[in-house]
């Protein structure tokens, strides 16, 4: 069991002149959820497609459970599951038939393929809808069916390429729960996401990509600590009072505050009295404060400080 589940070493993939993946290395072991985090075009999907044997690498090496993705592609394919960015289910088939088809393609005998389909249908809460065509499913049901389809062959390594894109928060949580349970069972999960929250919730370890390169890696906590300590956040009721708030924050923290378009003012708060003093001053100035407090840096802050640009925000609305 010493063979890493996923091993990527100096991987390069070019498309014409574009170096979509430009020499990245990382590895993951069984039972680990590894998050590949990065904006659109950072090379996440390309990396997953190389690992899933859909795309040959241009340079470097990638192996799954010790099997090279090029030389030993068939061995890789028999031990992985893939859920791509688009729900890869057949809309004309019923949920059950989608899973049955995959089972048959994996050479399960008919009865075993049927049993496996039923088992997964039940596990993913699709029992009621099993006999309906997948085209009638909601986005969340489709995603769950898609995830179920990638599990028919009991993969030891699972690739999830932006598994919750376009899902509402409820269904996102359902997918997250499933992923956690798979990892508990010893499956290695490589998850790509643009959503820092998702990476924070699910991944044990993170690899941050930007423009095809690894710009940081470690646990979420390690990455957060790189950005520094707590930050003071103040959001005035009236955004036009942000300048005044910023002046107060600057005086009380002794740091240069950042004013966001929403009117929120943030600054590093090294001394513990800064929050109390700022609050008192703002009361004295007659500024109505909507929100004030100390926060640990979020992964968003980490991303911003690593890449110099903000990460995407989840489309699912407020959590």
């Amino acid at each position: 069991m010493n063979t890493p589940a996923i091993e990527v070493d100096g991987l390069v993939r070019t498309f014409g002149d574009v170096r979509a993946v430009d020499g990245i290395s990382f590895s993951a072991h069984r039972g680990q959820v590894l998050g590949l985090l990065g904006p659109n075009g950072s090379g996440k999907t390309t990396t997953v497609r190389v690992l899933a044997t859909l795309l040959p690498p241009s340079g470097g090496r990638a192996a799954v459970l010790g099997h090279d993705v090029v030389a030993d592609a068939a061995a890789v394919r028999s031990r992985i599951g893939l859920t791509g960015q688009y729900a890869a289910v057949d809309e004309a088939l019923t949920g059950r038939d989608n899973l049955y088809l995959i089972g048959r393609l994996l050479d399960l005998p008919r009865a075993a393929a049927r049993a496996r389909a039923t088992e997964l249908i039940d596990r993913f809460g699709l029992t009621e809808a099993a006999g309906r065509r997948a085209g009638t499913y909601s986005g969340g049901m489709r995603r769950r069916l898609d995830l179920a389809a990638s599990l028919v062959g009991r993969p030891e390594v699972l690739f999830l390429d932006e598994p919750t894109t376009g899902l509402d928060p409820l269904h996102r949580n359902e997918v997250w729960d499933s992923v956690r349970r798979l990892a508990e069972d010893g499956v290695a999960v490589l998850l790509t996401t643009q959503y820092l929250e998702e990476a924070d919730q699910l991944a044990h370890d993170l690899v941050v990509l930007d423009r095809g390169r690894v710009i940081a890696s470690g646990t979420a906590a390690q990455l957060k600590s790189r950005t520094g300590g707590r930050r003071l956040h103040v959001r005035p009721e009236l955004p036009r009072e942000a300048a005044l708030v910023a002046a107060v924050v600057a005086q009380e923290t002794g740091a240069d505050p950042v004013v966001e378009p929403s009117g929120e003012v943030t600054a590093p708060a090294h001394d513990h009295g800064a929050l109390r003093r700022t609050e008192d001053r703002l009361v004295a100035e007659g500024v109505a404060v909507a929100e004030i407090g100390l926060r640990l840096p979020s992964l968003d802050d980490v991303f911003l400080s690593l890449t110099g640009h903000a990460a995407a925000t989840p489309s699912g609305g407020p959590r």
Partner: protein
Amino acid sequence: MTTTLDTPPTPPAVAPSAPARLLPSTVRHGLSLARRGVVTTIHSPEALLDVTLQPVIFLLLFVYVFGGAIAGNSADYLHYALPGVLLQTVVFASAGTGVGLAEDLKTGIFDRFRSLPISRAAPLVGAIGADLVRYVSSGVIMLVFGFALGYRTPAGPLGVLAAFALVVAFAFGLCWVFTALAMVVRRPRSVQGLSALVMLPLTFASSVFVPTGTMPGWLQGFAAVNPVSRTADAVRALLDGAPAGGAVTVSLLTSAALVVIFAPLAVALYRRRT
């Protein structure tokens, strides 16, 4: 969502089953995927209408709108046009193969298939297998409806079967052209548009709907070399019980040439398209 989790990740459940090994895996998996394709067609209203209603409408329109003007009366025209419309219907259905593949490639379901330990050609074999079922269904509907309208042939069941096989063989050859096109063009709608652009001149500038004698010389020249004409002539001759050897040979050679040239091309493009 239920919370039972009873699946240890090892050993992999992909244990090959002995009886399933009787067929080569490409065929076995291709058949599974072809079954999927057929179900997909049955459940897609527009695809089903393409297969069922379109041949009926084409035959009605051609026989009753153009028939009298072209041949003096609809009955005579039905006799001339049925073999042509049969061919045209199945040829148009073969263009649908490209559109269907482009759709599948867009949705990502092919990524799933290709990440499975199955032959890389199996999804293509499945798609085309399902479409052969579609061609045959369209053709049968067309023939049955033609008979209902009063079409009669002196050719026996064997002659009809031979004519039918020729049409399906031609469509099978052509479908590789559209498959290759789908791999290059990618957008389903563009595939559809381009296919129509190719198919309309090929079917109309031919002996499919009218004898070519009244066409200007240059068009007659085109119609004479147009493989669709040659196939239409062959089908017509077979159904009329007339000597058909030459036209049949040309048609079969054309179909074979299409397969030999475009099948490897389509497969190569499909493999590269990742």
